[in-house]
């Protein structure tokens, strides 16, 4: 079976959608030469009208995309750094997201915001290592964090076809993954995936952390039977899928690369405990409150949710109750 890299999967999704729909076009910094590699080959194939390099004017080109979408285009905006989303939070949340309701349904804003390389990029330090997906879930903007090459392809395609704004986080720690994928297909937004079935504990893992959760589940195989649930879309969340899993296992751990306060892990736990009587208090493994990723690699790793803390959390919920 052919092997597809995560990066190539994003590239292929963009190429397929550009080819399928004339209204799709790309905007971003250094995308003609494909500095992030996800737009490789697209300039040659689709031309500079549809693969548009922008000046360093994130706020204007984000709202330019909103305007284009208001009249029927489907822009995809690439951001070089996850923190640039802070710069355009206003343009996405206060304009793109609000226009359909505020106009009483007169318009749609189908823009995709793509961040190739979100979360820690080892060695890039404080201002390049954020993972602000919970902010967008909080604001009610459709937010996806694909964990695998197949999902990177399938979720990006669905994001571009969605009539609402969608933020796509492609974690730096997942970008080099490869997997056997013969014929990638669209993946519906809002639908989670059970990567591994288990009976004792449900571990909800976001993005690249799915792979850590799977590795830990393997290690623990003789002792605890771990089910790994990947929500794939954080907003809208697949509550039915998760509640089905937790209803069987009765125990819950969430591993999430957000800062702890108001991160998606808190929302997952709150929603589950509102609806399911768990056998033990749930646990979450996250970045610390207010985390700024320090530069030195050992420090950078020290504030990211890792396997050791996850093992500890699983042991804890397995014991209790």
């Amino acid at each position, binding site marked *: 079976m052919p092997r597809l890299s995560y990066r190539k999967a994003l590239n292929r999704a963009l190429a397929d959608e550009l080819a399928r729909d004339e209204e799709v*076009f790309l905007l971003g910094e250094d995308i003609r030469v494909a500095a992030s590699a996800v737009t490789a080959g697209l300039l040659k194939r689709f031309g500079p*009208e549809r693969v548009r390099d*922008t*000046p360093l*004017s994130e*706020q*204007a*080109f*984000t*709202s*330019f*995309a*909103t*305007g*284009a*979408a*208001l*009249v*029927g*285009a489907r*822009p995809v905006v690439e951001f070089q750094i996850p923190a640039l989303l802070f710069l355009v939070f*206003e*343009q996405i949340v*206060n*304009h793109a997201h609000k*226009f*359909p*309701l*505020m*106009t*009483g*349904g*007169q*318009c*749609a*804003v*189908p823009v995709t915001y793509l961040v190739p390389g979100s979360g820690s990029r080892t060695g890039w330090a404080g201002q390049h290592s954020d993972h602000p997906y919970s902010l967008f879930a909080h604001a*009610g903007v*459709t937010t996806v964090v694909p964990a695998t090459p197949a999902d990177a392809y399938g979720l990006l395609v669905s994001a571009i076809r*969605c*009539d*609402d704004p969608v933020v796509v986080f492609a974690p730096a720690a997942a970008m080099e993954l490869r997997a056997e994928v013969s014929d990638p297909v669209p993946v519906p937004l*809002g639908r989670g995936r059970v990567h591994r079935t288990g009976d004792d504990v449900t571990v909800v893992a976001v993005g690249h952390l799915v792979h850590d959760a799977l590795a830990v589940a393997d290690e623990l195989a003789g002792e605890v039977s771990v089910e790994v649930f990947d929500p794939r879309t954080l907003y*809208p969340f697949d509550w039915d899928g998760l509640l089905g899993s937790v209803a069987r296992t009765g125990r819950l751990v969430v591993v999430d690369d957000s800062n702890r306060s108001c991160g998606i892990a808190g929302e997952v736990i709150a929603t589950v405990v*509102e609806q399911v009587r768990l056998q033990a208090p749930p646990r979450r493994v996250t970045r610390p409150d207010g985390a700024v990723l320090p530069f030195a690699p050992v420090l950078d790793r020290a504030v990211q949710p890792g396997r050791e803390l996850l093992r500890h959390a699983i042991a804890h919920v397995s014991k209790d109750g």
Partner: protein
Amino acid sequence: MSGADPIWLYRTVRLIRRFEERAIELVRSGDIVGGIHPYLGQEGIAAGVCAALRPDDVVAGTHRGHGHVLAKGADPGQMMAELCGRVTGLNRGRGGSMHAADFAAGVLGANAIVGAGGAIVTGAVWARRRRGEDLVGVSFLGDGAVNEGMLLEAFNLAALWRVPVLFVCENNGYATTMPVADAVAGSISARAEAFGIRASTVDGQDPAAVHATTAAALARMRADGGPEFLEARTFRFDAHHTFEHAVRLDYRSPEEVARGRSRDPVRIAGSRLPAAERAAIDADVEAVLEAAVAQALAAAEPDPATALEYLYASGLTARTGGG
């Protein structure tokens, strides 16, 4: 639209004037909640600019946006109903004064965030022209907006990518209470010129002059594709926002206000028509607004169960607040 037709210009400034006066009455009576930013005194700009536009052209307005929406052709009854938060409003009662939009008339929306409209209308015009449509756009903005970085970025994009957007700065001398002289280093026009955008200045109190200057700019833009900038000097006759009717803010002297109000766009446009014609238009405008107010007040309020309708164009339904 009927170009520099003095009848159309007078009717439009008169309609906006009386619309705003009626809206202020409805703010006082409590039928419009949250108040409005009255466009009184600046009517000549919306009328003069929109007189030069075609129905297919698009505009993006501001927080002081009623005039832009009406001059571009929205129905006054639906506009008044929107201000009153009724289901029959332009935005079905979901937008109100600062978000009134009429996509069918080419109004991409008033916008409550100062400086936000420029990039949005630039993207909209670019996307439609890419399909081969022949249109231009107008971004209305206040003097306060020229200090917003996002707008200056939009000037750059529009100029670089040759997008025909006319940026119309309505310089009424103040951003709320902040005088232009205390807020703008350099000059307003020079900001546009720095991006290679041709800038003109016009007397915003004279609707015919605004029309003529706009028409000349649009002719150049339609021919060669790039943006232009128009600074219309004007004066805001009334409050920044109707809250000022209750809370006095001390930033303009009575003499300055009297001087500003002495150049009235409605009187200037009216003086160009015979008295009988003017009276007929006035009577017609009164009848239109009488019906608009009556319809708005008679219309139903939206059903609270539909509060989050239209939130997602994809059909997604949000979880409720629970309980």
